[in-house]
């Protein structure tokens, strides 16, 4: 069996090869991310059956946990690494055509580093290692947001940098406190001792860490950077930021709260925060006239929904939350990719300028519609089973409060439907006054979009394909003792 270390080492090595290859041939360098993501995809799929039967713990350096850094490749880790590799692969295909101007070699290096950071965060079993990979993820995304070098890009990148750096500083302070309390940085080792620790310093550490990670996860009210950053980045990067980066932030929050701290008292707070994030995101998205800002706010709403589902902390609702995460990654990446070329052709990000796009670029507009319908939760797309599972999981518990919150979540979905249908109407049913000539997106970009379309429909029709992985992921989060036992043996 291949070692899971390869999931980090190979893309990292290839990321550093990109500048060297770029010196020989710039055209060749852009294929490196495709190769790296394909490699990760294959390795993740290969590891999947073994991981589902028993999580793999990899010690680095050969000292054994808790003395060495270890990777914990459980169902959650492999689910995320699969998603990252898949989204990374599709977006890197799209970027072959889309990223043609500017310092392209640097783009590909940073893009790979971003994916390495994300993969590292989801696989590591060490808090400080998590911080390091988190910084790799964040710093490469700061730079990529400013890729075009225009005023908007630089301004939002600086905004993102300031808030992100503040978040990282809080995170690092929290980790320092944890190290002071327990003298260890291994997640499982901290988890063992967390129950008997002094509650107040432990709470302070947890608050610092959750707030620090919450900036990247875009939990309300820490999400002011997101609409700017996601809308002024190149569309391929918006797709990765919305589809991968904030999900990885969310993973880190969930892993800390569930596994490291085992803080069940925190969950109801997170639940409210989730619903609040959802409503704020959806309401702001409704008010936007800029399509990319609308999509960015919709990401905030979706993250709120996922947090709500996971914070209910029953096996059914966490499965639903992870399902929603998968469907959000696929749909939002698709939406940004499709919107990218529609914006490129119309020359403006205004929703009204997309009039008549259904005639001018029918395939791209179709892909956009599939993404939008999936995100709203229409059958037979992936968003339908995920929202159904979340609502079933939430109502299974029975409380009146949960029923009220579910009502609010449904209200959020209605708002979401309203603004997406408005865009669909503009794209398909309004006649643009401008050109009507066909100008479809390049073939390679269409291929990458239709891979996502196919996945969304297949998962929507056969949700049982991924339910098994999601169920084991849910039980990994809920059964903390199992995680600890596997690592410390």
């Amino acid at each position: 069996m291949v070692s899971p270390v390869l999931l980090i080492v190979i893309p990292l090595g290839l990321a550093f090869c990109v500048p060297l290859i770029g010196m020989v041939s710039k055209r060749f360098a852009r294929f490196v991310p495709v190769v790296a993501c394909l490699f990760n995809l294959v390795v993740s799929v290969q590891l999947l059956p073994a991981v589902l039967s028993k999580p793999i713990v990899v010690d680095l350096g050969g000292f054994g946990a808790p003395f060495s850094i270890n990777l914990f490749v459980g169902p959650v880790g492999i689910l995320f690494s699969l998603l990252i590799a898949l989204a990374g692969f599709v977006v890197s295909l799209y970027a072959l055509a889309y990223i043609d101007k500017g310092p392209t070699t640097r783009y590909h290096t940073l893009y790979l580093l971003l994916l390495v950071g994300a993969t590292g965060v989801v696989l590591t079993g060490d808090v400080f290692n998590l911080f390091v990979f988190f910084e790799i993820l964040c710093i490469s995304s700061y730079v990529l947001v400013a890729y075009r070098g225009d005023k908007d890009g630089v301004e939002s990148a600086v905004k993102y940098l300031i808030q992100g750096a503040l978040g990282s500083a809080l995170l690092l302070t929290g980790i320092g406190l944890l190290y002071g309390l327990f003298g260890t940085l291994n997640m499982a080792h901290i988890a063992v001792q967390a129950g008997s620790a002094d509650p107040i310093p432990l709470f302070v550490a947890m608050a610092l860490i959750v707030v620090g990670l919450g900036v990247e996860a875009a939990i309300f009210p820490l999400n002011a950077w997101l609409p700017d950053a996601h809308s002024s980045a190149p569309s391929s990067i918006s797709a990765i930021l919305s589809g991968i980066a904030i999900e990885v932030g969310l993973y880190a929050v969930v892993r800390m709260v569930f596994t490291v701290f085992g803080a069940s008292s925190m969950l109801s707070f997170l639940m409210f925060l989730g619903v609040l994030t959802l409503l704020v995101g959806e309401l702001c998205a409704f008010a936007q006239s800029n399509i990319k800002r609308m999509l960015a706010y919709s990401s905030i709403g979706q993250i709120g929904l996922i947090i709500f589902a996971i914070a209910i902390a029953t096996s059914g609702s966490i499965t639903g939350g992870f399902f929603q995460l998968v469907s959000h990654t696929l749909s939002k990446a698709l939406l940004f990719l499709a919107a990218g070329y529609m914006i490129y052709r119309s020359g403006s990000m205004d929703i009204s300028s997309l009039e008549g796009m259904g005639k001018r670029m029918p395939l791209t507009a179709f892909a956009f519609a599939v993404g939008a319908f999936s995100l709203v939760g229409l059958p037979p797309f992936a968003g339908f089973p995920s929202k159904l599972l979340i609502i079933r999981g939430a109502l299974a518990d029975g409380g009146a409060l949960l029923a009220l919150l579910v009502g609010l979540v449904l209200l959020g979905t209605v708002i979401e439907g309203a603004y997406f249908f408005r865009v669909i109407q503009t794209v398909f049913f309004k006649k643009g006054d401008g050109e009507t000539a066909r100008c479809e997106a390049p073939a390679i970009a269409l291929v990458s979009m239709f891979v996502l379309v196919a996945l969304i429909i297949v998962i929507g029709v056969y949700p049982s394909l991924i339910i098994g992985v999601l169920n084991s992921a849910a039980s990994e989060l809920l059964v903390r003792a199992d995680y600890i036992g596997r690592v410390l043996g």
Partner: protein
Amino acid sequence: MKGMTLIVKTITDFVVGFIVVFGAYIVLYGHLTPGGGFAGGVIIACAFILLMLAHGKDVAYSKLSEKAAHVLDSAGALAFLLIGWFGVTAGFFFMNTFGRGEAFRLLSSGMILPLNIAIAFKVGSSLFLVFSALAVFRRRSFRAMIEDELA
């Protein structure tokens, strides 16, 4: 005349060599005394940054061109990963499989010394590139500001 005054230039020319040697010492003895690849790499980068400050970028680039710095940057990182990968032959990534040598001697502690050297190349060249990027960016943005004022 580009760069700073003759006094600064003369002193710089005099100390630059010593700074590089000191940096190399910190790198090579990182496993025996305080220091290591990162600290030594920073010191070596400082020598080139000093050259750039005193003489201007042309002289600094003639000693270490931007392209060479990029190559060293990537090569250092790749070397680090490769050395780490040697550990896999004994079962674990980053396992110290090289010969340990005699304690307190230069050639001891297995892969720590090669790792330190790799890090020194990576950190030294990146820091030099960061500095030169900031210098170029500042000049460029200053020029853009003036052009905005005139327009």
